[in-house]
């Protein structure tokens, strides 16, 4: 017979709807829109959107103590495994050749991390705690896995918005970067043509590079060891050429599966009551600012290099000193060609870009070290 209790059970779902969950479901729709219609990082934003939607359905069993999303979170995000696995894949796909040909670009990558700290200062001014501020600053590196890794340790409660911000801005590189560059450079500077010289990078150097970086960074900044270790492991596998199957697996199958898990797990952290706070908005705005400042710092540093070398460095490539590889380099090339169609600086921009990849990891480790957190 239908009694009060049965009806209550039947209506449990409808009764469980809160305004926060409704808003979050709306946000998941926005993420779906960005991923599907706008093609912004669909590989990540779609699973994140799905995780967000699934987690915010009333009484969602998926985020209960043994629900799948919770299990995924505990399995790979809580202990930082997923971002590290993805890093192996990125390392396996990144060719550091352009950087090795021009080692001085390493410094451009370093300059590109300046925005991290400026944003950190701003976040502190806005009243975030030191841990939170550091996590927000890291968005400026435009490096998804690093952001997840750092904020997972320092401020796990802000993982959702930070990840969404990091990945969204990564796909917004072509939109955000050009105005910054145009604002900071003159027409003449953008038209500078950089000479090219190529040297054959021996296999030995290519193999030595990841090993040396692991040893050097690992010794000096132990907190960066997991990140740099995995990144360089991937690169070592690629350059050694002896474990092609592992290289392929880590850059395809493993990366794909982990991306799905990571997206779902991150999405599941975006639960209404935690997410819908003014701080989320600040995170998004500050993340954008961090990104802009990173580009600006890179460009300004490149200008300094240009001055030192006597006009041989096009300041545009400074903007490529962030992590989004190779998109940032491509965008730099496009800006240069707007000015002078026959100006090709993609290779140089790629060098700066690869440096940014390494530098953002180093910066992440440095931040962790200075905070005295992590392992």
């Amino acid at each position, binding site marked *: 017979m239908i009694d009060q209790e049965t009806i209550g059970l039947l209506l449990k779902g409808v009764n469980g709807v809160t305004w926060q969950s409704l808003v979050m479901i709306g946000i998941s729709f926005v993420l779906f829109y960005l991923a599907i219609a706008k093609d912004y990082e669909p590989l990540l934003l779609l699973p994140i959107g799905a995780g967000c939607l699934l987690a915010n359905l009333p009484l969602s069993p998926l985020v209960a103590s043994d629900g799948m999303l919770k299990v995924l979170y505990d399995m790979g995000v809580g202990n930082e495994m997923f971002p590290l696995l*993805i890093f192996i894949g990125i390392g396996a796909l990144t060719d550091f050749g352009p950087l090795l040909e021009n*080692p001085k670009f390493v410094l451009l990558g370093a300059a590109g991390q300046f925005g991290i700290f400026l944003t950190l200062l701003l976040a502190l001014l806005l009243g975030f705690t030191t841990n939170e501020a550091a996590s927000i600053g890291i968005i400026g590196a435009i490096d998804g896995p690093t952001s997840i890794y750092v904020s997972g340790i320092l401020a796990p409660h802000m993982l959702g918005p930070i990840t969404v911000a990091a990945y969204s801005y990564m796909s917004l590189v072509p939109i955000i970067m050009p105005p910054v560059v145009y604002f900071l450079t003159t027409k003449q500077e953008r038209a500078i043509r950089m000479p090219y010289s190529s040297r054959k*990078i021996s296999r030995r150097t290519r193999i030595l590079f990841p090993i040396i970086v692991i040893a050097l960074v690992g010794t000096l900044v132990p907190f960066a060891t997991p990140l740099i270790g995995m990144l360089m492991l991937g690169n070592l596998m690629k350059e050694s050429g002896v474990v092609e199957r592992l290289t392929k697996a880590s850059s395809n199958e493993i990366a*794909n599966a982990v991306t799905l898990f990571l997206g779902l797990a991150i999405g599941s952290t975006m639960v209404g009551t935690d997410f819908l706070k003014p701080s989320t908005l600040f995170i998004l705005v500050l993340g954008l600012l961090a990104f802009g400042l990173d580009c600006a710092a890179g460009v300004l540093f490149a200008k300094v290099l240009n001055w030192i070398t006597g006009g041989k460095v096009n300041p545009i490539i400074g903007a490529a000193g962030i992590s989004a590889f190779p998109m940032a380099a491509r965008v730099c090339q496009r800006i240069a060609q707007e000015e002078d169609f026959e100006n090709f600086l993609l290779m140089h921009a790629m060098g700066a870009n690869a440096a940014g990849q390494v530098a953002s990891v180093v*910066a992440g480790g440095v931040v962790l070290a*200075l905070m005295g957190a992590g392992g």
Partner: protein
Amino acid sequence: MENIAWGLQMTVLGMGLVFALLALLWLLLTLILKLDKEPEVEVSAQEATIEAERIAAIADDAVGAQTPERPTVNGMPADLVAAILVATHKHRKTMRRQAAPLVRIAWPGSQIFASRWLATGRARQNNNWQPRGK
């Protein structure tokens, strides 16, 4: 205020460390390259760019670095390819309309067929000629 002071300290220390670390890396890399003793060769910007495009194409597969590129066909922007296609098609059509040499059975001035103008003209000129003694 305490936080700010701490933050400033972080900035100086952090950036210093990052720069120092990477400068060290630079030094090491330069050293390795010295040991490599590979000669530097001047290359054209185009060559370098083609190489860079190859590297970029591989990295494009990485999760979280997908450029929202315009659609391409064999590496050329799709709208450019479409424009080229339309232009060639139009050109082809014009060539056919104007019976350009390429679409003709015989090239203009071709010697495959004797010029009838010449043949009839010569025949007319020679009409009254009789070989001597006939």
